[in-house]
């Protein structure tokens, strides 16, 4: 991943998304070990504090877990579906975006097509 400015998002959010994307696509499986904060920072040429913040959030969202002294791992249980508060918040964001798309005049079929693409793991 090359963290870039093509999205307007803070880098730590891009990193979070990237990890989640990799999990969704099966590149990262439950139990897989993530690079350490330091290694990830070196890899992406990012400030370690940025990476650290992303890892903390991922841990708070129960996507990853840190075993002290051993490393950071993708959580065994598939949590993403479970956390209802997060689903509600994300749904709200989705609805906002959908409103935007309607305003821009994008037809429903188009949007449905996009949703299918995302769920099939086609890289944008």
């Amino acid at each position, binding site marked *: 991943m090359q963290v870039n*400015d093509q999205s307007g998002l803070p880098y*730590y959010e891009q990193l979070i998304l990237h990890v989640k994307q990799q999990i969704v696509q099966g590149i990262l499986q439950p139990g897989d070990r993530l690079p350490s904060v330091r290694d990830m*920072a070196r890899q*992406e040429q990012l*400030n370690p504090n940025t990476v650290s913040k992303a890892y903390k959030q991922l841990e708070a969202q129960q996507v990853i877990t840190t075993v002290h002294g051993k490393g950071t791992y993708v959580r065994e249980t598939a949590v993403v579906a479970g956390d209802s508060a997060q689903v509600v918040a994300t749904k709200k964001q989705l609805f906002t975006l959908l409103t935007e798309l309607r305003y821009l005049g994008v037809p429903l079929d188009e949007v449905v097509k996009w949703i299918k693409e995302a769920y099939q793991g086609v890289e944008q």
Partner: protein
Amino acid sequence: MTLQVKALSKAINHQQIIEDISFDWAPGEIIGLVGRNGVGKTTLFRTLTNQYVAEQGQVLIDGQSTTRHPLQQRQLFFLDGQYNFLSNYRLWEIPEFFRLVYAQFDQQRYQDLLVQFELDRNSQYRRLSKGMRALVNLILALTSNATYIILDEPFDGLDVIVRENIATMVIDEVADQQKGFLISSHDLNELDGLSDRVLLLKDSRLVQDYHLEEIRETAKKLQLVFNDKTIPAVLKEHSQLIRVSGRVLVVVITHYTPEIDQQLRALNPVLLEELPLTLEDLFRANLAHDTGYQLMK
């Protein structure tokens, strides 16, 4: 343990170069220092390290002023790219000086890094190319094991691979929160990913202290076109102009709120598009001479 700069001021030949500079610096932070050429970044560094005697203000490390407690100066490392004494010495000789000042100077690592970067320990410093000298300066900075390290244009004149090596080394040093860096650079791309914070120096003052990830969350860069040629009040009040071409305005709004969004949409812009925001945009927004809407006569 923090380093605090309080109201530091320095005039040279009756011209105020830096004035009322204050900021805090903690280990684990990478701070970028950015400003136009000649604005006084190097003067700031020289004043921080007491090579220039400040007229006002002080530098405190762990609460102790570096002028009254000179020993604290050893926690701060700065090697002036232009005025350093290394010219006449060979690379193997240089540590002999530094280890007498920096108690934790890592001589082994110094030698290893020389080897890693293919620098001959017998070379005379002044016979090295500009890029190689910058590299030696950086190696000295890292092996001094001082807590607060100032780097003045460390990427200048270095090729892409070496730059990445340097960035990696800086990241490594910062990862365990033991050291902090203050980096001045014109390479905004490099600083963008690397820095937690960016200080903007303009007209002898520190005009901005951006925490970059925060800015990225709250700021937006917009491309706008309006029907009439007058600039909306909401823009004048909340945004900084980066570029104008014809009717197209490119602006940066540092705190983009839903209210601002509403107000903009209410004006029925012909075009309202979000663009990705980079450090370069922040630079332009603050430091271009023609900042402001004078352009839009």
